[in-house]
């Protein structure tokens, strides 16, 4: 393997947060893969695609983008937000659509998620990846939507 690896971009603006601090064992124990989370800043915003690829799974509150090599990144907008049944989330895409990194995927408002009683933190997961293949941005650093969040492989 050579080169810098795949750049995975932040779906939201906010503060980089360790996955271990996400209040959901599926993510904090990296059951479906390693990654990092972003504590989003409040206010309505669009969550953007983290990589170029195809949307293989689309829910109002979460989506998966798979690159052409099969490597897939999961973005989950808040914890337990499936219980909101899409309320407050506006999808801009459909399953199977091709997206570019940085393209808006879902409009949402972290403040509304918080007001509904859920944690708005956004885990970004490299599905089925090895922990040591990721080079994440340091926890606590500010990030904008579309900024590099971690590199994968390389």
């Amino acid at each position: 393997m050579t080169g810098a690896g795949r750049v995975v971009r932040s779906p939201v603006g906010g503060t980089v947060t360790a996955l271990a601090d996400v209040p959901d064992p599926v993510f904090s124990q990296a059951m479906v893969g390693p990654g990092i989370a972003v504590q989003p800043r409040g206010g309505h915003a669009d969550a953007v695609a983290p990589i170029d690829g195809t949307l293989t799974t689309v829910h109002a509150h979460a989506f998966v983008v798979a690159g052409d090599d099969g490597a897939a990144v999961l973005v989950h907008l808040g914890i337990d937000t499936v219980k909101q049944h899409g309320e407050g989330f506006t999808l801009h895409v459909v399953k199977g659509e091709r997206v570019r990194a940085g393209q808006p995927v879902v409009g949402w408002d972290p403040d509304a998620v918080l007001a509904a009683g859920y944690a708005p933190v956004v885990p970004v997961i490299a599905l089925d990846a090895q922990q040591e293949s990721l080079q994440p941005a340091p926890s606590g650093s500010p990030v904008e939507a579309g900024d590099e969040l971690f590199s994968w492989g390389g």
Partner: protein
Amino acid sequence: MADERAGRILAALGGADNVVEIEGCITRLRCELEDGSVVDEAALKQAGAHGVMKAGSVVQVVVGPEADTIAEDIQDLL
């Protein structure tokens, strides 16, 4: 085989009669059961589950990114 995995997971959840509702959510199956105490965690893990979280009658089975497909397969068996 996907169908076989769905059947094994369903059996480990106590069978179709024990399932009130099952829903795929990206990486996990969210299951509402009649009786959460009959869940066979070892069998779920043998069927490919990464983890199992129980809270009374609500059981979450972490199966990875194919959760939505597996949930549909299980729905077909109910």
